[in-house]
């Protein structure tokens, strides 16, 4: 499955970067969202994936039964998802505010600091 995931990650990155290179600030935000999804999947895929073996310990046992998926990348991704949401919320409100002040959603019109 990993090669498929690798290709998916590559396409997600490409589309994220393409969107981040747009002049429209809304597209930039969409690019950021795609980028965070791409990064999460990258960590997930790079660690190797397994079907149907969540890192859980059955009741009464000290160790999980058999081989389970690597819990560490999952914990990292969990943190990343939440942080990405915080960043996104901030960015969305920021561009909204910037639009109100500058009256444009074109990044090329936001080069000055005095508006």
């Amino acid at each position, binding site marked *: *499955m990993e*090669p498929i*995931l690798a290709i*998916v990650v*590559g*396409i*997600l*990155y*490409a*589309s994220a*970067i393409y969107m*981040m*290179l*747009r*002049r*429209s600030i*809304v597209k930039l935000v*969409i690019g950021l969202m*795609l980028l965070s*999804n791409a990064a*999460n*999947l990258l960590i*997930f*895929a*790079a660690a*190797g*994936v*397994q*079907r149907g073996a*969540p*890192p859980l*310990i059955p009741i009464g046992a*000290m*160790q*999980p039964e058999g081989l389970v*998926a690597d*819990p*560490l990348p*999952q*914990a990292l*991704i*969990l943190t990343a998802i939440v942080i990405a949401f*915080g960043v996104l919320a*901030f960015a*969305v*409100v920021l*561009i909204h*505010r910037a*639009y*109100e*002040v*500058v*009256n*444009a*959603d*074109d*990044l*090329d*019109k936001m080069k000055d600091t*005095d508006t």
Partner: protein
Amino acid sequence: MQFAVLSGFLLAALTPWLSGIFQHRIGWLLALFPASLTVMFLGYLPEVMAGSTAVFEYAWIPGMDISLTFFIDGLSLLFALLISGIGTFILIYAGGYLQGHPDLGRFYVIMLSFMVSMLGLVLSDNLITLFVFWELTSITSYMLIGFNHTSADARKAALQGLIVTVGGGLALLAGMVMLAGIGGSYSIQELLQEGDLIREHGLYLPMLLCILAGTFTKSAQFPFHFWLPNAMAAPTPVSAYLHSATMVKAGVYLMARLHPGLGGTEAWILILSLFGAVTMFVGAFMAIRSTNIKKLLAYSTVMALGTLTMLLGIGTEKAMMAFAAFLLAHSLYKGALFMLAGALDHETGTKDVTVLGGLRRKMPVTALVSLIAGLSLAGVPPLFGFVAKELMFEAVIAAPALRWLVILLALTASMMVIAVAAIVALKPFIGPLKATPKAPHEAPLSMLAGPVVLATLSLMFGLLPWFAGSALVQAGASAVGGYPIEVSLSLWHGFNLPLLMSFISLLVGAAIYHYWDSFRSRLQPLDPMIAKGPEAGYFKMMDGLVWFADWQTRILQDGSMRHYLRVILLTFVALTGYTLIARYELQWHWSLDVQLHELIIAFLLVASALVACFTRSRLGAVASMGVVGFSVALMFILFSAPDLGITQILVETLTVILLVLVLFRLPGFVSLSSPGERFRDVLVAGITGILMTLLVMITIDVQFFPSISGYMIENSQPLAYGRNIVNVILVDYRALDTLGEIFVLALAAMGVYAMIKFHPETDPGANKLAGTLILPPKVLPPQRKDVNGNQDLELQDRMDTGDSASSEDETRRGDA
């Protein structure tokens, strides 16, 4: 030992406070420091003269073979004595010279720091420590040349000196690292034992060239000599000390220090003899063209530095003796002459020797001392300068390479230096009294003490060479040569070739002095050629540097974020891609283990991401972003990460709501870029995506470190009492990380709240108090309209002048 020397830094730190108390008399107080060091160094003299050495071990960074070990042998002792001895008088002298200067305290801070750095340089046994002190002398020299920081010329000269010496310093560092690599140690004493190994190593020549680049720039060898005369913008005590007696000799010191280990090869002899001799000639020639007394002396210093380098290149036993004698003689007379030149400048108000004359009655002591020091510079018996010059001629006529060239250059240079000596030391005092900007009178005691003592030493070492001269020269020469050299100096060597050369140069020198004015005007046609010299090259290089900085800033940092992004991505792709291809081999896992529903989800993910990119409807984009998010969540759930799936679904739902709420207050998508730009961006995005795919493929196979997950899985229940291992990691193993995450979210929430809630421009009545928190106090509601009006006008202006028609339309639509 280390403490005694380095305590000078402490003294320097206290100096501003002390100078507030003692005013201009502080020079006498501070001079106690180098004076006591001089006494301490003198205490080592008998030991060193007997042929032994003293080592003071002190480990500094032992793990990197860097120590603060000090080492005293004939060479370092000779230098240490010159630095602390002359330094004593310079500190006293500066008190008189800069009397009443508002920045006297600052001057002494830098001067003391320099003195300590210079002592550290000559005493250090470790290459890296030596380099640190070396750079410290460059930096303090920079600050001292630019001491009159209100003068643009001084600042320019300071920068020039810094760039030339520090540029050379970089090469020197490279050379030192190579040397240590070849010899297997950073300790100079250990390296000098490995002479044969070093000389026969394949990297000998590049290493030598790197080290010489450092020493030649520092010691103002041709073609890097131009910074030294410009450094005369510094106050005279600085010129006398740094740019004549001590710092500029650091390069010569290092060459002499390394001579037993590196010297004697064909490359060494040729390079040093040639550059030394040419520098000697160029220095003397440029000196004779100058009329500024400090420039005259500066160029004659260049000449002396060239002579010393040449002698190191010749490398015979005689040359070693000549080197040590010439070094000592030069420091004594040049220090004295510089201080006297400063006294002349100070008391008459001019540095131009052509307007000075007849001062012998007004300044009798200065005249007498000048004469003695000048005679030593000219190499006239019975001064010590004569002894040194005779030795130099003896060494030159037995030079192993380029003999005739070296003899010719040495002879002409010495002729011209005799004229320079007469111009500097004789001309201002003889003939009729000429009018000067200030009414001349004798200099104060503080400014005469140094020259008197140094000139007396010149005379004494010459008349009574057995007194201390022989011993110092013997110790120095033995250390430079690397084997014991028996020295017994004497004034009279019998009728021989060197005496004849001295005699001829004296006659011709006197003739040049007599016809100096017409000689200078004859030389004037050469001016355009000299203007194209190495200094012009320096300016060209600086212009080129500015041009390059300007060019690369324009190309790489044009202020557009998207451009930065492209540059960063392409650099990333180039570097990472290269490493990937060069180091790793890609293995294709074509035996795919894929189920249909997984494939469908992957396809859905990719398709919706592409739709989000290319749709022209905002709703379409938001909806497809939702599909992307939920597909990722499904992926997580399918591949054993239920926690991630739950979080992703939650977050994705919130995200879609947020986007719907906010994005629809913004204008719709319009096409802002041309097809060409789109194609370029697709290209950049495409190759980055391909690289990311390859990276993932390779990381699946490569494991750099053993995973630490095993520990976490094993101890989750026994130690942390949790059955969901991911959760245990978050709240237990990496709890601090999670705490940080909570802070980040809280900050983001506060930012969002502030931006939504505090809205003075559109809703001033609701939040008066909150509004004033963000806006500066002067923008209060009554003035608000003006502010808004101005803003609109500004916006209109910028649109009219700068932007394209399509974006203008776009903005209007936004307004509507």
